[in-house]
């Protein structure tokens, strides 16, 4: 298992958000985390990166990562595209991308920049531009490029479709599939757009008010009566 959580709890101050959840992310897989607003999806991703106070165990490639500082967890190979995309608005697109590769010392960075430009041609056009001037879709692509430049083994995506036009959503999910298949990056994606997420994922968890209520292969979840009614809307 690439990532493994056992009895994971998380809280913001006094309010508890996760009440002890277990989940795993398979190496090479795409795992989806579904649920309504406020179910604790974003908190789960934040917990993995040490951005909230947690209890319970988190293992990445067999090593405990819970309790470690965010920057150390990130450096160990987990990239996180946060909700709101985390763009450095005041910096240029180029600088945003350079920051993505901040932890790397190897010589492959330049080649990776080129790969990003092939994957996201828009970023090449806007290379010198201030990132705050990009459109929502472009910022999402920049965020994914920034995350990939870290050369992660696990990519955490928080609502990549949020606030984007359907065509761009299609494109983003297509890119997700490519990252997973061609580059072998495992993905844990949080989505409200359940049908989209289930189309790319091979495994899924359903989160309700801080507890996992359903888990299994994506295909089974798709067929589940209650999920269909509540989250897929048909």
């Amino acid at each position, binding site marked *: 298992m690439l990532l493994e959580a056992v009895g994971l709890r998380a809280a913001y101050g006094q309010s508890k958000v996760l009440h002890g959840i277990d989940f795993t992310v398979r190496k090479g897989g795409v795992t989806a985390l579904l649920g309504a607003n406020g179910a604790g999806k974003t908190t789960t991703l934040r917990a993995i*990166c040490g*951005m909230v106070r947690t209890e319970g165990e988190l293992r990445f490639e067999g090593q405990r990562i819970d309790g470690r*500082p*965010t*920057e150390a967890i*990130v*450096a160990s190979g987990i*990239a*996180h595209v*946060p909700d709101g995309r*985390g*763009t*450095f*608005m*005041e*910096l240029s697109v180029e*600088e945003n991308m*350079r*920051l*993505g590769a*901040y*932890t790397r010392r190897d010589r492959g960075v330049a080649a990776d920049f080129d790969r990003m430009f092939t994957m996201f041609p828009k970023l090449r056009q806007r290379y010198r531009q201030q990132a705050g001037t990009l459109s929502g879709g472009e910022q999402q692509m920049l965020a994914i490029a*920034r995350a990939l430049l*870290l050369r992660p083994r696990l990519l955490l995506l928080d609502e990549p479709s949020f606030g984007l036009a359907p065509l761009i959503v299609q494109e983003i999910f297509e890119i997700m599939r490519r990252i997973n298949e061609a580059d072998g990056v495992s993905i844990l994606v949080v989505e409200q757009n359940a049908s989209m997420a289930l189309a790319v994922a091979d495994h899924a968890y359903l989160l309700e008010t801080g507890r996992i209520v359903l888990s299994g292969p994506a295909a089974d979840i798709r067929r589940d009566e209650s999920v269909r009614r509540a989250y897929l809307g048909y």
Partner: protein
Amino acid sequence: MDGLLHQVFSGLATGGIYASVALALVMIYQATHHVNFAQGEMAMFSTYIALTLIQAGVPYWWAFAITLVVSFAIGAVIQRVLMTPMANAPVLASVGIFIGLLLMFNSCAGWFFGYTLKPFPSPFGEGKPMLAGYLSRHELGSTAVTLAVLLSVWAFFRFTRLGLAMRAAAYNPASSRLVGVNVDRMLALGWGLAAAIGAIAGMMVAHVVFLEPNMMSGVLLYAFAGALLGGITSPMGAVIGGFVVGVLENLGGAYVVGAELKLSLALVIIVAVLVIKPSGLFGRTIVSRV
């Protein structure tokens, strides 16, 4: 006309000092949204360290370098020990700590080194005035040093990986952690750097105004004025603002209000900026951060 040009040139020379301190203020402001009221006193204290070294027989530029290192360390330690625990405290607490630091540096300097005015050497020698008599050797030399400092700070932030990470940590700490930047370390670095820049300003101005514990209180005021004039959110603006304030101060002192009211000019500039263009020439307005 000749007199006017002379005033402008020597205004630029002192303006460089103000620009340095303004830059130090803006660096800390950008990273933490706090204004370090102790910046001037820290610089003054650093200058005493340099003087002590020089009097002990250390050659000037060695003393200069050692002072920078020590000042950097003092700045970084202050950030670590005092500011980190106060990161989420109300503004009043952080302002209080800055004022506490101001008091401590000021009185420790008086305690250790006395309150008498002390001459501070110039590495550029006394000699004849340069540039057709418009600038003294020290003015010319200190302007060159200031410009070199400002240029290297700019290059550091613009071109190096560490400089980029520091800017990122200042703008967006959460995202910076997510790309692997150690934000606390960047803050400590920023404080250290600001302290070192301030120390250079202190060593350059001490030759002109003589060293004493209250040497920097006026300089700090002009630096505030410069930072506000340029826009407290813009390092480049702060530098330009510092130079402009230096020239305004000299011209105003010579032709308008007289030397004994020079300090009030800083106050007038501050109020004028707030009334006419609160964001400064190059900055963004701060949305009420109470």
